């Protein structure tokens, strides 16, 4: 069976790869969007924290013998804790200043974390393999589906949906949304906004940490894995709308698939397609597809 002149198997497995990449894009841009919405900070260190999540997973196994399943819970918590420290000790001082400085802090932090891990583990990094339960592939008849890929997509969809639900439908989420619109008024209502900010930041980077755990078996766990990804994630967030939750999730998935399909039909453009789309969106609709002009 053929689709557009390519064997169906190839197109479908490329589609799944696109969904996997898209899941990572979605989770990472979701974290970025949440953080930007409330803190008005573009968390450029998101990639480095995702990388820390992956490394934590590996370290958990290598130093403490903790399984993948344990790290699935622990790694996001650890990264979230690091996020709390970052917010409380560094980010907090910069809210009063021009946005530029928050940005610069994040750039510096990302460089520092990458360099730090590189000094310990080298540029090529370490390798981590998936647990046995998730290895192998399922033969679905029309295609062969690697189990781990299906697992990644499933977990991401569940987490993204749960996050969306928490933000849009729960009381805590309503505090977050209110804080995004008018933090002073929310504080006047008696809600501890600084703590909300810290927790939001921790949650956002925790998502990145979770993405790191999921990524550890699929990509080489190297210090650069974050920076390779972060620029594309950026573009995704901008296209989706800098603080839009739905925008981040949908755009992440769609662009992941788009990128994968383009790399099948026209490989040279696959790296640039996201940026071309971003440039077009910025010129025509700068607030992003789902965003509101601030």
């Amino acid at each position: 069976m053929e689709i557009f002149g390519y064997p169906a198997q190839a197109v479908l497995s490329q589609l799944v790869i696109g969904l996997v990449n898209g899941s990572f894009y979605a989770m990472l841009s979701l974290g970025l969007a949440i953080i930007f919405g409330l803190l008005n900070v573009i968390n450029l260190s998101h990639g480095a924290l995702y990388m820390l999540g992956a490394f934590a997973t590996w370290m958990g196994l290598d130093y403490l013998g903790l399984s993948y399943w344990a790290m699935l819970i622990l790694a996001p918590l650890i990264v979230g804790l690091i996020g709390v420290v970052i917010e409380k000790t560094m980010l907090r001082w910069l809210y009063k200043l021009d946005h530029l400085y928050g940005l610069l802090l994040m750039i510096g932090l990302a460089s520092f974390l990458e360099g730090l891990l590189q000094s310990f583990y080298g540029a090529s990094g370490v390798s981590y393999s998936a647990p046995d339960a998730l290895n192998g592939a399922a033969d679905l008849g029309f295609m062969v589906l690697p189990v781990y890929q299906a697992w990644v997509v499933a977990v991401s969809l569940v987490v993204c949906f749960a996050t969306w639900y928490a933000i849009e439908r729960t009381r805590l989420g309503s505090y977050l949304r209110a804080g995004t619109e008018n933090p002073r008024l929310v504080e006047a209502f008696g809600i501890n906004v600084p703590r909300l900010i810290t927790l939001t930041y921790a949650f956002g980077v925790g998502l990145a940490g979770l993405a790191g755990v999921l990524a550890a078996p699929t990509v080489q766990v190297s210090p650069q894995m974050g920076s390779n990804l972060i620029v594309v994630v950026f573009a995704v967030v901008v296209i989706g709308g800098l603080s839009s939750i739905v925008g981040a999730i949908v755009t992440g998935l769609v662009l992941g698939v788009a990128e994968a399909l383009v790399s099948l039909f026209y490989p040279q453009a696959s790296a640039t397609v996201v940026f071309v789309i971003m440039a077009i969106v910025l010129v025509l609709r700068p607030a992003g597809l789902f965003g509101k002009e601030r």
Partner: protein
Amino acid sequence: MIDRKVAYGLAVVVLLLAPHFVYPLFLMNVLCFALFACSFNLLIGFAGLVSFGHAAFFGGAGYIAGYVLATLHWPFALGIVAGIVTGASMGLGFGLLAARRNGIYFSMITLALAQMIYFVFLQAPFTGGEDGLQGIPRGTLAGLDLTNDMTFYYVVLAITSLGYALMLRVVHSPFGQVLLAIRENEARAVSLGYDVTRHKLLAFVLSTSLAGLAGATKAVSVGTQTLTDAHWAMSGLVILMVLIGGMGTYFGPVIGALVIVALESKLGDFGNLLAETTHVDWFRQIGVSVTMVTGLIFVVCVLTFRRGIVGSMLALSRKAGGQGARQHG
């Protein structure tokens, strides 16, 4: 503190005598990065625009200049001009798309466009991809043989001084004053009747032209051009240079460039020194992991040292009676 004219005079003397004491290639590197940093400062310090993709102009001009010199055998002067024109035209292209926006959206557009340019360079055959463009000849200029490092140093010094002088001229002009107004309060500048978009576009093109000049000169001085110069990490590095030196000051970016270039070349030795004195082997890794140190400096500067070196010096001299220096920032 010191009178400004004396300081400049001292700087000129130091720059003229330096190659007899310090390795000329290192100095040329510093000068080119200083010009690059000054071009960036023009945008961020005076117009208040953060361009996240400035490396595209720096690296791009280097590639084009390198190509016309190495493959088309153009004379040196034309190669440099090609670099400037590359910077200017890329700047015009980026600027037409970005100038209407401000703040974070402006930065995002420049980043996106710079990434596209990076991938174009990665794949275009003439750039040599990951290997880079090799064998860029120095040639001659008005009869002078430029392969002599000493001679070429003075040529580079002349070029970068001209660039620096141009930057000063732009800032001190009425145009420069309008840029400052736009930086302080864009809405008010609009309400006063200034065509803000056109001013931003012109400032952008001027900045990218200077960046192009810096990139082309550096490509010729080193003889090769690699992807590093067009990567967004280079854009981050130039931001750090300006931050350390002092945003919005005139000489700050030059000092910042000096600090960073010196740091990058001496860090390995420093790491080894630390390793020997403390017997902690890990310190040897510092030399390999320059990004860790630059990242740390970045973080410390942003939190505690936002005025930068020159900025802090100016603030101190102002406190001590405000003699001389009437610089901004």
